[in-house]
């Protein structure tokens, strides 16, 4: 039963993922909006900005790709060239199910050459999806459903729908871990190229027949899926103390798939803090997929109760970052911990040894984290109020010795207004996508003056701007490649700047490149009243509007929904009996703009041709379009009584205006203010001559243009009386306004008019 209508599809972004999806070298962004999946590609556009004023670069992409003509006319002073990244929607799909996680997986022999994505849906389902370039659409490789585990659960435990799903994929794509239910985990192994090396140790006598591994190139063999069968185990089988898992994530820089899991033995509770304080523990397990066994690498206990997420970090920092509502704790590969508390509550709720930055008074619930890509592995924190802060790591040699957080101060009015981030994805050097459920999702770009100065020193570039743009385009830089798991041995040389002394040139400046509009969350709705249309109003019709108050905080907005497009009438003219119109522009040379022709309207159409139906028959009239209005143009070769135009168009780059009538095709030269017919000497059949046949007289009259000698034909006995002649000739002599037209009919009378 259809009892409601959806006005718009979901606009709040819940998950995002940066992945080469369409091909191996593509840079795509996958966005999930509850049950809507969108695939975007990214495009760089360059815009000129007047220096000192940072404009939101409008979309200027043409089919010529990046570097198309600057939007601001070259007459303005040349300002800074700004490069912006824009989102281009490739495809969108309605999924039957709510997306709870997105992860990217590198699989063997994908159809597009790029990577595949794993979509976790509520109710414990995983879907492995790749891009099919032949159908230009996504295609599901496999669906993994774990709903049968629901039957085995105890009746007092929450159902699968109510439980939290956590999906994590190993950075080398060897397997995926999916936590569903209360404490079940499913491991889905993927075949990778390195598996064949492991198989060499296979001893057929002991382990049975060696399975044949097909290594042929080409499209995926039907019987060889890119994954091995998954297995489900209870977390208690890994470790009996993992009874209340909170979050898990695979870690970087390990040879085997290794994940860290944040858990506790009893449920955490604010009310019982005086008794159950610091009961959380963080354990790192290594999985052996062949044996289906795990080994505990390290375990850190007595962690504060409000930690809610594990963020794995790449080199140069390494380890994992545990985020809680009142503190941040970094655990490195050896188990050494460093924490920082960010508000007063931390002291009261935990006795974990941490640095004290409670003067910041931050609340880290709902905070988004993303790498900034600086030398020191700095990370950007997007707080739930939309404020920005930077987390830096103080190091002692190669190990982290402390964390430091500082606010980002608004810079010369370059405020970026963000809402709380629901997801973040790094899409390139200096660009990240921040998705939000509370406000518009944005592409946030950042830069530092000190980075530009450093690069200028390194290369003597003719144009510093071009160097910076090239640098920003270079996505191959390994130190910022978030997913370069294979480059573990190439540790980039880093120098950690002292976080306490941040000069202004080292401060980050943020700019929004593109936004995805979000219409919610709607707080209040109202409808407009339908009044009578006021006389003299410029509205096309009476608009019916729905007004909403939406958003939170600095990103709050009022939205107006209208049922139809409401054009505002700029001018109105009456042309009696009109039933078709065309507009054409006249140019003297192909490709010239109106400016050179000295016409007021640059590039706009100049003439309006109207088919009208009047008593005497169908007519076409021509009007010129001026800034004051439409004026009918007389005195041209355009003949109104020739009949209704079938079609109007231009040829030869706009220099010839063509009118297709029912019985002929006329071309006009549009370059001059008057319309002249094309006079061609190469087509004798259409010489500007009138050939009259009349039943009464066997005479032929011929009119020629002024520069030709008038001739008279006489006694054209070769013409047959019964031949019907259809030429309509319109001539305009340059120095006189004589228009000669001729109508021919099947028999007797011939009439010709001179106006």
């Amino acid at each position, binding site marked *: 039963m259809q009892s409601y209508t959806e006005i718009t599809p979901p606009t709040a972004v819940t998950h995002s993922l940066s992945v080469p999806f369409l091909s191996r070298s593509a840079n795509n962004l996958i966005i999930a909006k509850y049950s809507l999946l969108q695939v975007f590609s990214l495009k760089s556009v360059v815009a000129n900005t007047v220096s000192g004023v940072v404009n939101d670069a409008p979309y200027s992409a043409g089919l010529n790709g990046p570097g198309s003509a600057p939007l601001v006319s070259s007459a303005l002073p040349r300002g800074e060239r700004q490069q912006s990244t824009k989102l281009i929607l490739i495809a969108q799909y309605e999924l039957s199910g709510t997306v709870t996680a997105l992860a990217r997986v590198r699989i063997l022999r994908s159809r597009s050459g790029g990577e595949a994505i794993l979509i976790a849906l509520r109710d414990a389902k995983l879907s492995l999806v790749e891009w099919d370039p032949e159908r230009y659409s996504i295609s599901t490789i496999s669906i993994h459903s774990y709903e049968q585990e629901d039957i085995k659960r105890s009746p007092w435990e929450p159902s699968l729908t109510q439980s939290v799903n956590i999906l994590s994929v190993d950075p080398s794509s060897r397997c995926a871990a999916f936590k569903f239910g209360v404490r079940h985990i499913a491991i889905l192994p993927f075949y990778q190229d390195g598996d064949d090396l492991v198989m060499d140790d296979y001893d057929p006598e002991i382990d049975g027949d060696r399975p044949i591994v097909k290594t042929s190139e080409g499209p995926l063999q039907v019987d060889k899926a890119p994954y091995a069968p998954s297995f489900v185990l209870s977390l208690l089988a890994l470790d009996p103390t993992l009874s209340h898992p909170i979050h898990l994530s695979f870690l970087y820089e390990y040879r085997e798939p290794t994940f860290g899991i944040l858990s506790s033995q009893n449920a955490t509770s604010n009310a019982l803090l005086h008794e159950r304080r610091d009961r959380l523990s963080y354990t790192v397990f290594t999985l052996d997929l062949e044996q289906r066994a795990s080994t505990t690498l390290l375990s850190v206990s007595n962690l504060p109760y409000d930690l809610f997420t594990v963020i794995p970090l790449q080199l140069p920092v390494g380890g994992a970052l545990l985020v809680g509502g009142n503190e941040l704790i970094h655990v490195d590969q050896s188990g050494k911990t460093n924490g920082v508390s960010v508000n007063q509550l931390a002291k009261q709720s935990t006795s974990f040894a941490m640095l004290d930055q409670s003067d910041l008074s931050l609340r880290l619930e709902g905070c988004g984290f993303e790498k900034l890509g600086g030398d020191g592995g700095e990370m950007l924190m997007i707080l739930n109020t939309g404020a920005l802060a930077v987390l830096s790591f103080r190091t002692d040699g190669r190990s982290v010795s402390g964390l430091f957080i500082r606010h980002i101060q608004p810079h010369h009015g370059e405020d970026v207004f963000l809402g709380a981030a629901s997801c973040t994805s790094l899409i390139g050097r200096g660009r990240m996508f921040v998705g939000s459920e509370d406000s518009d999702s944005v592409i946030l770009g950042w830069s530092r003056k000190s980075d530009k100065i450093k690069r200028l020193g390194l290369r003597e570039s003719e144009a510093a701007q071009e160097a910076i743009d090239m640098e920003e385009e270079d996505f191959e830089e390994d130190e910022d490649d978030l997913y370069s798991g294979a480059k573990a041995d190439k540790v980039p040389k880093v120098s950690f700047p002292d976080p306490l002394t941040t000069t202004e040139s080292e401060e980050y400046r943020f700019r929004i490149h593109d936004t995805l509009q979000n219409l919610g969350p709607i707080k209040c709705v109202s409808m407009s009243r339908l009044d009578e249309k006021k006389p003299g109003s410029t509205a096309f019709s009476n608009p019916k509007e729905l007004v909403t108050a939406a958003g939170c905080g600095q990103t709050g907005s009022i939205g107006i929904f209208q049922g139809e497009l409401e054009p505002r009438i700029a001018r109105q003219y009456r042309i009696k009996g009109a039933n078709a119109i065309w507009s054409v522009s006249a140019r003297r040379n192909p490709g010239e703009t109106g400016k050179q022709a000295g016409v007021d309207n640059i590039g706009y159409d100049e003439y309006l041709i109207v088919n009208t139906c009047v008593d005497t028959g169908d007519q076409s009239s021509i009007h010129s379009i001026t800034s004051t209005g439409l004026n009918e143009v007389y005195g041209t070769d355009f003949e109104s009584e020739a009949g209704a135009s079938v079609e109007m168009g231009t*040829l030869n780059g706009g220099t010839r205006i063509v009118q297709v009538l029912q*019985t*002929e095709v006329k071309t006009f030269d549009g370059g001059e203010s008057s319309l002249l017919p094309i006079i061609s000497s190469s087509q004798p059949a259409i010489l500007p001559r009138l050939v009259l046949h009349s039943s009464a007289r066997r005479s032929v009259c011929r009119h020629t243009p002024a520069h030709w000698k008038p001739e008279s034909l006489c006694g054209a006995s070769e013409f047959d009386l019964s031949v019907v002649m*259809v030429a309509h000739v319109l001539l305009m002599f340059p120095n006189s306004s004589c228009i000669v037209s001729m109508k021919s009919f099947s028999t007797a009378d011939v009439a010709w008019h001179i106006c």
Partner: protein
Amino acid sequence: MFPLTDEAADAEPKAIKARFADPYILLFRDNSSVMVLGADESGDLDEIELGETLRGNQWLSGSLYDDANDTFCLEIQDDEEEELGNVLMFLLSVAGGLYVRHLYCVFRNLILYLACR
């Protein structure tokens, strides 16, 4: 000026529809036949000879398409392409078939689809 006389018959087939793509005009007449006119540099129109199949057939509708981005990936020699452009003519016959011709050389039949009714 270009008269649309049909020399063979007495009747004058009237033009009922026209499609433009620089430098060609595709005309549909009321006897379901088509005519293609081309304009040269000075703008003079000249009828382009169509093959027997196109002339004799009856057409419902059609269109001209200037393939500026080479969407159809035709393999044309570069020197010839610059001269004559890359305009494709799509015609829908009364029997339901779709004919695609390249106006660079009208006798080159690109794709012939015969759709069932």
